[in-house]
C-alpha cells in the first residue's frame, strides 16, 4: 500500500482535509463511514448490479489492431466511452448516490466543468428520485450548451457560478459553499479524486472497477494480468486513478499520466499541473496546484474542458513526486490530431480529454512486444462542436 492512501488521509505528503470547521461534521461523518458502507454486502450487491444493468459494465478491453500497427506496439483500449452517459464519470456517481442514500441525505449537489460529471450526477439523481443541484461556471454554461440541456432534461437545476473566473474551480467553490449552507440533508458528489480526504480515496475506489476489469480481461486475452504500461489522461485524475488502482503497487506495470499542455507548457495557457504546479492547498486538499508565488490559484487553460483544472488529485501528486508515474503533457493541437487519428483508424471518436492520452504515441515510443492499455475515458459526442470548429468539418 505504498502508493495508496494512509490512515491519516495522505498519499506521501499530499492529501489531508484542509476544510473550514463548517464542513467538518459532514466530511468527518463520511470519513468514519465510507469504508464500512462500501463493504456492506447490500451496498456491493446494489453497486455491482447497477454497474452491470444500468451502466453496461464490464466495458470491453478492445485490441486496437490498426492503431497498434501504426505505432508498432500492442495497444488495448479500455472502453469507458461505452458507459451509459458516455464516460467513466458515472462509475463514481453511482457509488456516491448509494453512499448518500445510506447516509440519509435527500439533496445532492455537484460541480461540473464540461458538464460530463454534471450529467452523470443528474442521471443518478433521476434514477433515485433525489433533488439535484449542479454548479457550473457561467462561462462553461455558455460553452457547453448541450450538456446543460441534458442536465435540465434529467431534472437537475443548473446554477451558474459567477464568482472568480467563472469556470470549474469556481463551480467547485460554489458547491462547497452550498454544502456549508446546507449541512444536514445534503451530500456533495465530487467529480474527481480531488477535495478533502476521504473524497480522493472514495472516488478512486469507485473508479477502481476499471483496473479490476482490465486485470481479468488481460488474463483472458494475454494469459497474464499485467500490461507493461497503462496510460490515462489526468484532469483531476479519476479515470486515471481507476485505471491505475490495482497496479499501483506493481512496479512492473508502468504508469503514464497525460496532462493538458494547452498551447504549450510555457505558453501561459496550459493545464499541465505537474510541470507548472507547486505544493499548496486547493479545495481542501494539499496537492500540486497552479498558483502565483503569492499563493493565489491561477486559471488553467486547455481546449478540453475536462482537463481544465488548476490542481491534480493527491494520489497523482504523489505518483509524480515519488517518480512512480511518468508524467507527459500534450498540446491542444497534438490531442486534436490524435482524436482524428483514432476516429479514422478504429472507428471510435474519443472525448478530447481522452485524445490527450492517445497523442503520446507520436513521441513516446514503446517496444513492439509491449502491451499498452489506454483508458478510453469518454466518447467524443459532447466535443463535436470543438472538433467541427477546429477542423472546419
Amino acid at each position, binding site marked *: 500500500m505504498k502508493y495508496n492512501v494512509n490512515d491519516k488521509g495522505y498519499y506521501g505528503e499530499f492529501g489531508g482535509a484542509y476544510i473550514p470547521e463548517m464542513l*467538518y461534521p459532514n466530511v468527518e461523518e463520511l470519513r468514519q463511514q465510507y469504508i464500512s458502507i462500501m463493504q456492506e454486502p447490500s451496498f456491493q450487491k446494489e453497486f455491482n448490479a447497477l454497474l452491470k444493468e444500468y451502466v453496461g459494465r464490464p466495458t470491453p478491453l478492445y485490441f486496437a489492431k490498426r492503431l497498434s500497427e501504426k505505432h508498432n506496439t500492442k495497444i488495448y483500449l479500455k472502453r469507458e466511452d461505452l458507459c451509459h452517459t458516455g464516460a467513466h464519470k458515472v462509475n463514481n456517481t453511482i457509488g456516491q448516490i448509494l453512499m448518500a442514500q445510506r447516509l440519509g441525505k435527500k439533496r445532492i449537489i455537484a460541480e461540473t466543468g464540461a458538464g460530463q460529471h454534471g450529467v452523470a450526477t443528474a442521471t443518478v439523481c433521476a434514477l433515485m428520485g433525489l433533488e439535484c443541484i449542479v454548479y457550473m461556471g457561467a462561462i462553461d454554461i455558455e460553452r457547453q450548451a448541450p450538456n446543460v440541456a441534458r442536465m435540465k432534461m434529467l431534472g437537475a437545476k443548473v446554477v451558474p457560478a459567477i464568482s472568480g473566473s467563472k469556470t470549474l474551480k469556481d463551480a467547485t467553490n460554489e458547491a462547497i459553499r452550498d454544502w456549508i449552507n446546507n449541512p444536514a440533508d445534503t451530500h456533495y458528489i465530487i467529480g474527481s479524486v480531488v477535495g478533502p480526504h476521504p473524497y480522493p480515496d472514495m472516488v478512486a475506489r469507485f473508479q477502481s472497477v476499471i483496473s479490476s476489469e482490465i486485470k481479468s480481461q488481460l488474463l483472458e486475452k494475454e494469459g497474464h494480468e499485467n500490461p507493461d504500461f497503462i496510460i490515462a489522461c489526468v484532469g483531476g485524475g479519476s479515470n486515471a486513478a481507476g485505471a491505475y488502482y490495482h497496479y499501483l503497487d506493481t512496479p512492473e506495470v508502468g504508469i503514464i499520466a497525460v496532462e493538458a499542455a494547452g498551447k504549450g507548457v510555457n505558453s501561459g495557457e496550459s493545464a499541465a499541473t505537474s510541470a507548472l504546479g507547486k*505544493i499548496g492547498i486547493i479545495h481542501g486538499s494539499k496537492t500540486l496546484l497552479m498558483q502565483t508565488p503569492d499563493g493565489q490559484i491561477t486559471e488553467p487553460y486547455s481546449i478540453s474542458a475536462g482537463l481544465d483544472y488548476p490542481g491534480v488529485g493527491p494520489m497523482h501528486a504523489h505518483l509524480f513526486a515519488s517518480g512512480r508515474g511518468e508524467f507527459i503533457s500534450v498540446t491542444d493541437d497534438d490531442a486534436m490530431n490524435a482524436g482524428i487519428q483514432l476516429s479514422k483508424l478504429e472507428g471510435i471518436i474519443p472525448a478530447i480529454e481522452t485524445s490527450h492520452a492517445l497523442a503520446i504515441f507520436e513521441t513516446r515510443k514503446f517496444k513492439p512486444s509491449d502491451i499498452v492499455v489506454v483508458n478510453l475515458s469518454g466518447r467524443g459526442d459532447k466535443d463535436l462542436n470543438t472538433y467541427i470548429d477546429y477542423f472546419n468539418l
Partner: protein
Amino acid sequence: MNRISEKLKENKKILSIYFTAGYPSIDDTVSVLEALQESGVDMVEIGLPFSDPLADGPTIQASSTQALKNGMTTQLLFNQLKDIRKKIDIPLVLMGYFNPVLQYGVEDFCKKCQEIGIDGLILPDLPVAEYKEHYQEIFENYGLINVFLITPQTSNDRIKEIDSVSNGFIYMVSSASVTGGTHGFGKSTKDYFKRISEMKLNNPQILGFGISNADTFNSATKYAKGAIIGSAFIKMLSNEGFKGIKKFIKSIR
C-alpha cells in the same frame, strides 16, 4: 502580554470589525485601521485576500477579488503594516486562507507578524489536527494567538478539544452558513448560544457571521464576550467610503 488577551480581560463587550486589506483601494489598509480605532472599535481582523475564499459569501468574495485586482499580496500587506504599531494600539488579527501563508512560509509569516505587532491569526481552513501536529509550536514561539471556529454543528467533544488548543478566544459562527447572512437570530440559534455559554469554556467566545447592526450585535453579546462584523461593514465601505465608518460604528453601539 498579547493585546488580545489584555483586551479580553476588560470588563466590556468586544466590537470587532473585519475588512479586506487593499479594499476599496490598494492604499486604504492603514487609513481604514485608523478610522476604526478612532471610532472606538476594540479589535480588527485584517483580511488577507485569497482567490478562492471557500467560507465567504458574495460580499467578502467580491472585496477579495477587487483587492487582488488592486495588486494586494502578502508581502505588500506586511509592507503597509510595517509601522502600524506607531499609530494603532488595539489588537490586530490577520484573517485569511492557509495557502498564501504556506507559500510565504509558515515560520517566515509568523515571524513577520511578530515584528509588525500582529496579535493573532484566523485561518479557517487550517484544521485543528494539522495545527497541533505541525504549527502550534511555531505560532506560539512568535507570540501569536490562533483562533478556531465552532458552528452549531460542532459536537461538544470537539468544542472541548478546540477549547484546549485555543489560547485567546473561540470564533463562534452564528449559523451554518458562509459569511454575509443577514437574517436575525431565531430560537435555535439562541439555544446554541446558550448551550455554548453554559459549557463554561476556558476561552471566551466571540460571535461572527450574520452580525450586521445594533440588534444582532446586542443579541449576540448577550451570550458571548463580543461580536465580529464583516460583510455589513464592507457593504457600508463600498457604498459610503471612509466617511461612513464613524457613523456605522456609532450605529452599532
